[in-house]
């Protein structure tokens, strides 16, 4: 009997195989026949999706020789600065934007910075010290027990571009935040609203399982054929919507909005269930086999953080290649992060070092260079993952940003933004654009338009309708 049962190979059995280290496809790949002749779009003429990513790291940059190329321009006219040297093979895909300011370009703090560069600020608190008093929690340092008060840019993009992918957005990270309480922004990048963070996954094995369970849906019972399971799942999700709608009639407006979000999640899950046997949702042009990662979460062993980082980067690439999401955000480290970096023999915490005087600038710079090498690894992994005749990096744009410019004095002047990818040809790349006094919100507005969004102004601090056509192709 046991043998007979084993022969009925359900998806569930396949999952067990994967967990023992056998690679399988996360999602049915699109065969070559589904692409057009040149492999640059789907055969039906629909272009490959342009994806939007964020790579965020805490504690800023050092404007100057380590970070700022001496000349601006395109192609060979500009050279990578020291801290971006690991992008040598990726320079063609880089658009480095420097010189941007926040508000009056004066002292602010990590909390203000992260609210600004991820959500364009907000209209109520954090603009000045006195404004913090308006927080419902009373007097607080920076955003401790605070939060993003507007949706972060990745969520704005996700709202606009999500269709039927299993994940409306994918949140990942590497270093678990450590240091002074920064409220929800320390541990989380993506927010749909105040105190509504979308926690990132930092453990490669858990992320792998999450992607796998979305690609190969959970069985409803051993031996149940997959198409029957899928029918049963849909019937349950339909009933859940009925119940949620009824519950919504009874609650106040804040909870009604939460239930709206919950129902949207149920619908999104339902849309990811294949409707016909053997024919799953449209996938990316190639959906590579992935092996269960062996790397552990970074906080288990910081000396092995490079392996954790590489594993996460590979899984992000797999999720994009398999068309599981169009929006991803990767939180290398939170704003004001205080992790240390034994992997490069820096045993003092990142944030503390930024405030310990000029003698420690070289050590902070080493940390920054290391973080950039991991960003370069993400970009390289995307470039190495084919998408038709091109690759994932061609079809994405990554907003690489930190909450500050120079960290020692929290000066909100001369932000350095490292954009990677050609956004499906909309961004030319291999360019250093610098213009003092322009605002980060102008770039954020431009990125939303690149993603096809019909928006003409952005930001609550530095609200703007000015874009940056200079970086476009």
């Amino acid at each position: 009997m046991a043998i007979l049962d084993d022969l009925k190979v359900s998806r569930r059995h396949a999952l067990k195989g994967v967990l023992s280290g056998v690679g399988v496809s996360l999602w049915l790949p699109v065969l070559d026949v589904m692409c057009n002749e040149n492999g640059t779009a789907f055969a039906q003429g629909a272009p490959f999706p342009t994806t939007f990513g964020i790579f965020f790291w805490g504690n800023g940059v050092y404007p100057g020789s380590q970070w700022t190329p001496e000349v601006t321009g395109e192609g060979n006219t500009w050279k990578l600065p020291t801290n971006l040297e690991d992008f040598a093979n990726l320079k063609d895909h880089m658009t480095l934007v420097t010189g941007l300011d926040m508000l009056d370009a004066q002292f602010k703090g990590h909390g203000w910075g992260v609210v600004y560069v991820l959500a364009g600020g907000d209209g109520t608190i954090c603009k000045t010290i006195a404004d913090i008093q308006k927080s419902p929690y009373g007097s607080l340092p920076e955003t401790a027990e605070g939060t993003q008060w507007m949706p972060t840019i990745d969520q704005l993009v996700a709202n606009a571009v999500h269709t039927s992918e299993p994940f409306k957005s994918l949140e990942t990270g590497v270093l678990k935040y450590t240091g002074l309480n920064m409220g929800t922004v320390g541990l989380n990048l993506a927010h749909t609203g105040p105190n509504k963070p979308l926690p990132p996954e930092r453990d490669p094995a858990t992320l792998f399982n999450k992607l796998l369970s979305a690609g190969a849906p959970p069985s409803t019972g051993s031996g149940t054929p997959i198409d029957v399971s899928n029918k049963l799942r849909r019937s349950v999700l339909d009933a859940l919507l009925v119940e949620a709608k009824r519950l919504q009639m009874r609650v106040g407006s804040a909870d009604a909005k939460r239930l709206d979000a919950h129902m949207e999640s149920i619908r999104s899950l339902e849309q990811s269930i294949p409707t016909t046997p053997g024919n799953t949702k449209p996938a990316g042009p190639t959906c590579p086999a992935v092996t269960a990662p062996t790397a552990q979460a970074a906080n288990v062993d910081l000396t092995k953080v490079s392996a954790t980082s590489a594993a996460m980067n590979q899984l992000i690439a797999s999720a994009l290649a398999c068309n599981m999401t169009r929006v991803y955000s990767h939180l290398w480290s939170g704003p004001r992060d205080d992790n240390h970096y034994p992997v490069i023999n820096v045993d003092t915490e990142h944030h503390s070092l930024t405030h310990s005087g000029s003698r420690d600038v070289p050590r902070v710079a080493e940390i920054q260079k290391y973080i950039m090498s991991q960003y370069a690894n993400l970009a390289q992994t995307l470039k190495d993952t084919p998408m038709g005749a091109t690759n994932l990096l061609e079809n994405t744009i990554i907003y690489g940003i930190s909450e500050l410019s120079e960290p020692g004095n929290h000066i909100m002047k001369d932000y350095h933004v490292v954009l990677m990818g050609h956004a499906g040809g909309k961004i030319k790349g291999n360019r250093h654009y610098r213009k003092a006094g322009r605002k980060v919100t102008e770039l954020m507005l431009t990125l939303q338009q690149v993603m096809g969004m019909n928006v003409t102004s952005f930001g609550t601090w530095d609200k703007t309708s000015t874009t940056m056509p200079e970086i476009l192709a």
Partner: protein
Amino acid sequence: MGSGGNGGIGVPSQGGTTLRLLTGAEYLTSVKALLGPLTTQLVPPTDASVAGFVSVGAGLLNVTSTAQAAYEAASLAATAEVFGDAPRWQKLVGCTPKDDLGDACVTDFIKTFGRSAFRRDLTDDEVSLWLGVAKNAAMVAGTAAQGLATMTSGLLQSTNFLYRVETNKLDGSNGRLKYDGLSMATRLSYTLSGGPPSAALLTAATSGQLDTADGLRTAAAPLLASSGVGDRMTAFFSEYAQAEEVSLVVKSQTLFPTFNAALKSSMLQSIQLFLRNVVLAPNADVRSFYDSDQAFVDANLAPFYGAQAPASGFAQVTLPPTSGRAGILGQAGVLAAQSQSDRTSPSRRGLFITGTFLCTTPMPPPPGVDTSVPPVVNMPLTTRQQLEATVKGAKCAECHSMFDPLGFALEHFDPIGRYRDTENGLAIDATGTVNGLSFDGEAQLAAILRQDARVLPCLLRNFYRHANGRAEDDKDPAQIDGMGKSLAARSFVWSSFLPDFVASDAFRSAPALPITTGSP
């Protein structure tokens, strides 16, 4: 803020219904209470801590598509295990129905199981909705077991199960919003045991018993006598002291090669044993949290505390005065969690004490202050000397004087919580004053904190947050005041205070806050 904490203009709320998502721990306990023990490992969505507690986050978090997928996967895995085993599910359901599920016992099962899952009786519409799901599934899959499994997995993903639904209305006698009986059954049960209300407690709720303070006391008695309350209160004090931080911190392996996962785990267990067996012991004064001379050591921790290692496991020891340690701040795990990787930080430790135990948080450095540290002169200094030299200017000292001295008291303990007499060859200076009272070292600070008038109100304010699942508002201090009086009247014994608390307005009602329009 969800609770309308922004204040603002508007009429006071007349009450209504609010939602609190089950925390990860509550979800797991609830599923097991409904289905019995499971061997399949279930992975609920990640909690978010807001205002210091995941229970506050649970009142604000949205269920994302990732979270919904996790709920689905967990409910399918759990029901696949139970309904894959005929004797097991037949016991749960109470009968062996025909394949079309037309039997009356199926409807009975939906009613009883649904009542436990939703923590109230199902409406007729709900019964027929889920009976429809079950019958359809049985037909599509061809078996009764699959029909029941599918329906059960649905109940475990229902918003009525995943959210604690709490309803209150204006009570004219005190102007507060009083929770109804079923809401109180759920609040009592999750607060005291971490799990869902029993059938008997739900019956007590519908009979009106939970509408009075005396009725609540009677209903709470079995919960208070169960072992779950010890787990639950240990978890609260542990979350309050940020004890779990110790499992997340990483130390310089050059300086502290012994600080590994096993040691971190010993430190966390030691704190939890201290909380459960000392602070929360029967008849114990809860203020022992601050200054007790008791601790728990195993072989890993015995050298830290200058104690004899027990033959196995943990042993309770009385700390000698020479240890310099007392109470929660003397716990190696707390000291390690509140230190940097390669050095102590008196500012950080001081901020932890003021923020956590005194409920005051100073402002960040004002605009224009140069926060970079001046170069260190070429001579050995203690951490304290370096810090004092850096912040001696009036602009810095104004705030640093509020918290650095409290951190200095802990300077006898290194970044992993070991005692030291010297640093860089120089004697440690752990003296200081708080509110005009002098101390030398952590144990003396602990004795002062125990007497500080700010300390217990701060603890109770945090318990109020934790139990009610929301940050307190400007209408709440009177309630927190009342809790303080009640705790004192019970000789500061936490287990004697709990029945008073659950029967008090602080737990039975919420403030009637103004309804603001356009608040997030």
